[in-house]
């Protein structure tokens, strides 16, 4: 099994929001990808966006500017 690392996880209410976020973040060339929602996060839809921890603010800014809905951003050791 892979080594655990600190990641940020962007959680969405619906798959549609996650899809919109993927399009948006790829457009902005943000490093990361859609992953299954970690079980320790109880809310949100089944897919989430995972990126390295230092990108949290940048992602928040992009999603807000582009009007993409998300529920929360968590930092997770996974």
């Amino acid at each position: 099994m892979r080594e655990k690392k600190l990641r940020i996880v962007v959680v969405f209410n619906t798959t549609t929001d996650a899809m919109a976020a993927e399009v948006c973040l790829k457009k902005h060339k943000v490093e990361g990808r859609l992953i299954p929602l970690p079980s320790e996060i109880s809310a949100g839809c089944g897919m989430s966006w995972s990126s390295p921890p230092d990108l949290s603010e940048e992602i928040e800014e992009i999603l807000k500017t582009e009007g993409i809905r998300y529920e929360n951003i968590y930092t997770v050791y996974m």
Partner: protein
Amino acid sequence: MIYLDNAATTLHKPQQVIDAVVLAMENFGNVARGTHEESLSASRAVFNTRIKLATLFGCTGGAGNTVFCQNSTEALNIAINGIINEGDHVITTDLEHNSVLRPLYRLEKEKNVKLDFVRADINGNINYDDFEKLINQKTRAIVCTHASNLTGLVLDINIIGGIAKKYGLLFILDASQSAGVFDINMKDMNIDVICFTGHKSLFGPQGTGGMCIARGVEIRPFKTGGTGIKTFSRYQPEEYPVRLEAGTLNSHGIAGLSAALDFIEETGIENIRNKEEGLARRFYEGVKDFENIKIYGDYTKKRAPIVSLNIGDYDSGAISDELASVYEIATRPGGHCAPRAHEALGTVDKGIVRFSFSYFNTEEEIDEAIEAVAELCKK
């Protein structure tokens, strides 16, 4: 075979639609059920199709308020049952298909919902002033078709939407016969819910359809179940589109619908409309003066590409059967699931033969159909 039953379903689909369905069947996992590439491919395709539909219909709720289901009938059932409350008053028209009428009649029977109908005259026309005259304090919604599937009359949804807005009513539109051919804009026309099917004038596969929901319009779920999200919540998620989409989506069909929407975009709605109207007009002009022919509807009005007729005292089933078995021309006889429109036209006893045209029909086919009708009129 000449296929002139396109108001029932378009037979000829663009090749790219067929290719997209095959590709999807070879590659798609389940939408929103994981983040492996196969599931994501399906999720992305469905999401892109939502965007295309939201754009086509000017959906104020955006892609997130664009919901998929099987067809217009299911969409109308979800919208009507999910919006209308016990004791509400609803206004609809005589031109409706049973996909509007039966959900409303059931609410009338089971939920004490009161119905009023804008009446159609013997030519299938309605008077728009009647909508306002029928409004009362309990009126909740106007539910109506954009185009009659029997006569082809296109209703002025700008007027109806304006009345709905003026009186604070919800406007639910059945776009079964108009999506992809006539301009529809939820915002400009004050439409709250558009119910559409993919397999008719949108040229998509059967089993694809859905609704666009204006921002702020609340629809109770018709079904609940698996959504791929919020597994441990006892209840259906509140958020659109999953609120109304329990169970596995028809992503294979939706991929085909997506390709069909691309075809419409590339071809241009206006070009599609002009060609279909031209074919319908050519057929109408070709047959209208035959002896023994009776044509229904008003040809001075804006029309969908439908021409409905009868010949002499023959039953519509006999005419349509003769057209199919002798001339290999596919048409639709009978009641067309539009009982009140037949009552208005006086055709309950023998039905009507409906010729409906598609972008993929040719002038040669129309001329052959005219010849066939000419022969039948002489017999």
